[in-house]
């Protein structure tokens, strides 16, 4: 097959076809700067037809300034007879649209070599410029974003350093507080190693700093109040490592000076996320000693105060025994009153002592089988005798009702409730007392027709030293200990006491304690 061949001389028609269909705008001008040829792309770009352009110059289509520039470049090319490259030139087409062009103007010679025309080949780089512009914008935005990011990072860094400083400050404060705290503080990690021991804790051990919980316990000689050694799993910090909380448990340990024992209260709690446990130690040795001295003083004081009362009571008895006839009629009420005063004084002394023992947790109850109905009956009989007919008593006893109790203490409770009823209820009113089994419990009720107790005071009257009359601006006497003691005594029996009352409607005190099984 023959290789395809081009005609030796291309026909002008053929060349025009090629130029016409080239995608780039192409134009040819003669030496008078008139357009002699424009291709389709050129027409489309400028929004003109070939007919409108052929034979015309730039001044016919473009603003003057632009046409001047084209002419200048055309002139330069014809003068130099060399290619002129215009890297970038903005033009506004006939539709008013702006283009950015890159144009090459090349000299055209005739067969004799004379420079007769120029051909311009245009690259419309508007799109490129737009992309470039967009890219620039994007770059600028990126730069700005980067700058903002840097700023943010800077701010964050600043905040972080500020926060770190605050935390360090806070930590320093806490460490200073810990160091100066009167209570000892121990912190153990999850393995039981002691990671913090403040000054007070170290001083409690006479300057020792054991490495872990067990070593600490051994160095402290930690024992239960009864003197038994504390086994490792029972150590408060060990229990706290197991997730338990220990609050103010009392222990003995070696006194820091080596003389005798110190008493400490230990509280321990787990740290969050299983990071260990913290323990606070309070040396209460001085407090215990003060308590012991107070207890001793109260014992002696009560003994000393009661002894003259004993003489006084015997004296009243002796006098009463000597009264005869009219004298007897006149003086017996006074003597009875004297007995009541002595008894009251004795009760008050007893209350102070009991209250002190309750505070120390030393109120002992001796539990025996006690028949409650008989106990209540005897207490009511005594109260009746003491009231000298001022109050009527109504009794409703469902006995026998056996309980496991300290008879003296229960007698004290019932006597106290009856004395209160007589104290607050008006003369001539009735005190109703009942005793019955209710849901496996023994229930005793003492109801009076006194002024009643407002709702907000129904719990407070059981507080130590609380007196209703202190509020009402009246004085009924007493120390505000009776009901407190009653509640504590019943608590020691596994029972409870409460009051039901409406102001003006009287008060009903009830207490319960576990009843023993009914017997046949």
């Amino acid at each position: 097959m023959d290789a395809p061949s081009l005609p030796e001389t291309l026909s002008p028609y053929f060349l025009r076809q090629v130029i016409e269909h080239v995608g780039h705008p192409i134009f040819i001008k003669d030496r008078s700067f008139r357009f002699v040829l424009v291709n389709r792309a050129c027409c489309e770009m400028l929004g003109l037809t070939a007919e409108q352009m052929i034979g015309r110059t730039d001044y016919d289509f473009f603003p003057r300034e632009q046409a001047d520039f084209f002419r200048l470049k055309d002139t330069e090319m014809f003068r130099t007879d060399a290619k002129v490259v215009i890297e970038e030139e903005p033009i506004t087409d006939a539709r008013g649209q702006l283009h950015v062009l890159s144009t090459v103007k090349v000299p055209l010679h005739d067969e004799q070599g004379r420079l007769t025309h120029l051909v311009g080949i245009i690259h419309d780089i508007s799109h490129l410029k737009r992309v470039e512009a967009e890219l620039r914008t994007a770059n600028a935005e990126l730069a700005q974003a980067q700058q903002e990011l840097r700023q943010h990072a800077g701010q964050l860094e600043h905040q972080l350093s500020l926060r770190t400083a605050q935390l360090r400050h806070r930590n320093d404060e806490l460490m200073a507080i810990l160091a100066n705290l009167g209570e000892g503080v121990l912190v153990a990690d999850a393995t039981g190693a002691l990671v913090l021991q403040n000054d007070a804790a170290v001083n409690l051990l006479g300057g020792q700093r054991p490495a872990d919980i067990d070593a600490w316990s051994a160095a402290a000689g930690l024992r239960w109040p009864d003197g038994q050694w504390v086994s490792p799993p029972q150590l408060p910090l060990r229990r706290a490592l197991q997730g338990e909380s220990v609050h103010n448990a009392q222990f003995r340990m070696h006194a820091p000076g080596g003389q005798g024992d110190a008493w400490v209260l230990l509280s321990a709690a787990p740290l969050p996320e299983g990071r260990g446990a913290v323990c606070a130690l309070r040396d209460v040795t001085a407090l215990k000693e003060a308590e012991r001295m107070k207890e001793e003083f109260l014992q002696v004081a009560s003994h000393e105060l009661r002894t003259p009362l004993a003489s006084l009571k015997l004296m009243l008895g002796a006098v009463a025994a000597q009264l005869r006839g009219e004298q007897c009629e006149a003086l017996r009420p006074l003597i009875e009153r004297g007995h009541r005063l002595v008894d009251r004084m004795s009760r008050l002394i007893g209350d102070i002592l009991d209250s002190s023992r309750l505070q120390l947790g030393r109120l002992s109850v001796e539990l025996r089988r006690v028949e409650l109905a008989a106990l209540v009956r005897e207490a009511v009989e005594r109260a009746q005798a003491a009231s000298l007919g001022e109050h009527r008593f109504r009794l409703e006893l469902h006995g026998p009702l056996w309980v496991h109790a300290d008879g003296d203490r229960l007698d004290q409770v019932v006597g106290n409730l009856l004395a209160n009823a007589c104290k607050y209820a008006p003369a001539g009113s009735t005190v109703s007392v009942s005793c019955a089994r209710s849901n496996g419990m023994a229930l005793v009720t003492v109801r009076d027709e006194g002024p009643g107790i407002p709702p907000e005071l129904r719990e407070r009257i059981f507080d130590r030293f609380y007196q209703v009359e202190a509020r009402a601006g009246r004085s009924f006497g007493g120390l505000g200990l009776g009901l407190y003691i009653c509640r504590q005594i019943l608590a020691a029996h596994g029972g409870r006491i409460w009051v039901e009352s409406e102001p003006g409607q009287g008060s009903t005190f009830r207490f319960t304690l576990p009843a023993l099984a009914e017997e046949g």
Partner: protein
Amino acid sequence: MSTPRAPGPSSDLVLVVDDDADLLEMLEVVLRMGNCRVVRASSGRAAMELLRAEQPALVLLDLMLPDMRGEELFEQLRSLQQPPPVVVMSAAVDTGDRARRLGVPYLIKPFDVEGLMALVRQVCPSAVAL
């Protein structure tokens, strides 16, 4: 014992042991009115001294003595040939518990004449209620 003693207890004699002079006196007054004879001791030693010569039908014993605890004197009384019955009297809070441990009746101070005489009459046949 070298000191001669009466052959048996005096059925109307009460030994009162307490360190409070007023109480001793009032007990003596009341017990005399109740037809008893009284000997007083204000310490454990004085009480033991008296017991060499006397054989009371009853000892009223305070638990808090200047020279010993009531329990100690009680033990010494126990060691006598014929230990007299004892009634404990005290103002101590644990009087009841302590008396129960000794296994004897007790009076908590202040006690009244009736309670006292009821206990006395259990051992002194000649005693009377006031």
